């Protein structure tokens, strides 16, 4: 294997491939940082350009765009509380408060280090443990998915802020809103209008919930602060801060690797799970949500930790885990390669070239992140009174362009007003988002499991994997309740 990797290294290490990967990383970072534009959009748009390229450079371009946009989403999440991707929503929780404290550069640096670490570990896992992870992914059925979603939902407790009860209310609202539209058996629910039959897309809900309330706060509670820019402050991450965050970074990376290898889970669930775990085990857990670097480290390492491992079910089983890997599946097929077990038989050299190229792209991500950071940091100099309307314009155009539909724009603005009311009632937004993203998977797998077992709920705890996730969920809930009770006594 080592010999094959060295041969692949020589084949990949060309100026042309480096330029292609660099273009992908830079393009991904910039696109991911623009509110309303997503990595999926970037990868889908780039696909036609790859028709005229060689197979491996074309796949590397798409992968580089994906990785770049995953990191880029954290830039807007930190600077303007507008996550570029759903997984970056978790980074908002601590990144934006840090930026408000004048430490935007520090937050961006930590996001970059964590992203690159998670990405690198994910690439190594793809190379060395793809086979056993793929076999594990094959054993995950509807009951296991359901329990995994339950475990992921327990992170609601961690991001609920000062009141677990209000966090649970927020999660219920998210679960409820996720039921709008067509269910798995074709029934339309809450279709008050014809447009609502297609449900609510994640992008307008996500951006509406996080970005628009900031504009409303500036308008309604207008004060002198709206004309003062945030200060850049000290940009560096000290050795002590890095050492403190290392544990969260490494755990987050592994959580991202495992969850990314399971088709359909996605980086959002990984990011929130990692964040919840980091908060539970941190000595500074009280500081989470107020600008804690460990929070950024946990979420960013997990969401970039998914980037490499999400290719495992694609390469090993031919199963795309999400829309982006679905596009990559298309790219593979266009170039005459069929992902799946036979890929390793028929195109082993190309597969190793892909592995090496992905390792290179992690290094390029670091360089692109450092180079763009200075530029992005200056965005925080724009006064909030000007920045918030600019963000609104970007969001409106970006959301409209996704599906060429005013319905999504209406959802964006309506969710903004809803998010503002949630703020007024001190109901946290993060649990809502987690529940909104995980809710459909939770319900679908519950109903599938019950259909398989002919209505017998014991199927939900019938295998070792379900016991594992159920035990983890109970453990997290018990620990959280104990912490809340201790807080209430104090």
């Amino acid at each position, binding site marked *: 294997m080592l010999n094959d990797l060295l041969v692949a290294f020589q084949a990949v290490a060309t100026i042309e491939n480096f330029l292609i990967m660099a273009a992908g990383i830079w393009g991904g970072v910039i696109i991911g940082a623009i509110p309303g534009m997503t990595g999926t959009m970037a990868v889908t748009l780039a696909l036609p350009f790859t028709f005229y390229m060689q197979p491996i450079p074309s796949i590397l371009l798409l992968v580089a765009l994906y990785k770049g946009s995953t990191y880029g989403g954290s830039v807007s999440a930190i600077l303007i509380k507008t996550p570029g991707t759903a997984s970056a929503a978790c980074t908002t929780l601590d990144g934006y408060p840090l930026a408000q404290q004048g430490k935007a550069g520090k937050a961006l640096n930590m996001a970059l280090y964590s992203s690159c670490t998670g990405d690198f570990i994910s690439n190594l896992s793809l190379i060395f443990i793809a086979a056993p992870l793929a076999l594990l992914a094959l054993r995950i059925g509807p009951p296991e998915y359901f329990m995994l979603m339950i475990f992921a939902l327990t992170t609601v407790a961690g991001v609920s802020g000062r009141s677990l009860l209000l966090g649970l209310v927020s999660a219920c609202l998210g679960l409820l809103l996720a039921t709008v539209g067509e*269910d798995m058996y074709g029934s339309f629910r809450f279709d*008050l209008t014809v447009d609502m039959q297609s449900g609510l897309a994640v992008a307008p809900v996500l951006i509406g919930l996080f970005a628009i309330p900031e504009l409303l706060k500036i*308008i309604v509670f207008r004060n002198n602060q709206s004309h003062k820019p945030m200060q850049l402050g000290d940009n560096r991450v000290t050795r002590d801060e890095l050492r403190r965050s290392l544990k969260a970074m490494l755990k987050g990376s592994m959580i991202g690797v495992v969850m990314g290898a399971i088709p359909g889970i996605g980086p959002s669930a990984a990011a929130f799970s990692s964040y919840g775990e980091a908060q539970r085990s941190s000595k500074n857990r009280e500081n989470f949500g107020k600008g804690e670097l460990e929070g950024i480290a946990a979420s960013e390492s997990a969401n970039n930790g998914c980037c490499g491992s999400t290719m495992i079910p694609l390469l090993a089983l031919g199963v795309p885990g999400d829309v982006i890997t679905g596009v990559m599946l298309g790219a593979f097929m266009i170039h005459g390669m069929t992902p799946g077990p036979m890929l390793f038989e028929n195109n082993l050299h190309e597969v190793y070239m892909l592995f090496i190229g992905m390792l290179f792209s992690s290094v390029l991500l670091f360089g692109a992140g450092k180079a763009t950071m200075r530029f992005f940091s200056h965005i925080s100099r724009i*006064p909030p*009174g000007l920045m918030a309307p600019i963000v609104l*314009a970007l969001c409106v155009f970006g959301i409209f362009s996704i599906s060429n539909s005013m319905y999504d724009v209406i959802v964006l603005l309506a969710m903004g007003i809803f998010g503002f009311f949630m*703020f007024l009632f001190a109901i946290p937004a993060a649990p809502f988002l987690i529940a909104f993203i995980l809710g459909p998977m939770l319900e679908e797998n519950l109903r599938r499991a019950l259909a398989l077992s002919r*209505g017998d709920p014991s199927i939900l705890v019938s295998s070792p994997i379900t016991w594992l996730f159920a035990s983890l969920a109970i453990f997290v809930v018990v620990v959280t309740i104990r912490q809340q009770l201790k807080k209430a006594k104090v």
Partner: protein
Amino acid sequence: MGITRGLVITVLFGIVLFLLIPAYVPRPRFIPGFAPPPDMWPRTVSMLGMALGILLVGLSFSRKTEVIADPEDASTIRGDTPLVTLLTRFGWTVLAFALFIGSVMLLGFLLSSILLLMAMLILTGYWRHKVVAAIVAVALPLVLYLFFSSALNTRFPVGSLFKAIGI
């Protein structure tokens, strides 16, 4: 605040459970196998939400448990500004959003978004920097319109007014 919040949450989930689900969540006559019906999950979540709302109301009555249900005082969020002023500003913002949605089909996406951006800059108070605000209000939507139209082939609504005059 805690009692109000609990009541609002209870009423909201109650409306969903007793009004919206019966009206807008169909229950098919035939459900294959042992699959749960489509209204199972929304009902479960709504009932849980109502229960949480009632719990919030209950906990707010006791001083010992009030802190669990009501972690922060509303006045820390609102500050000293009179409620009427806050409501007026909020009302103007919602009106601006509604007018934007309504005007897109008449004036087109570009012009409507320019007007929306102007309205937001006035409402945030940044309009006192008139030159910068005016440039941003016109240039930004124009740049975005050109970018999304050419790079992403997005077809923005032109507006019936412009169609009527032949543009």
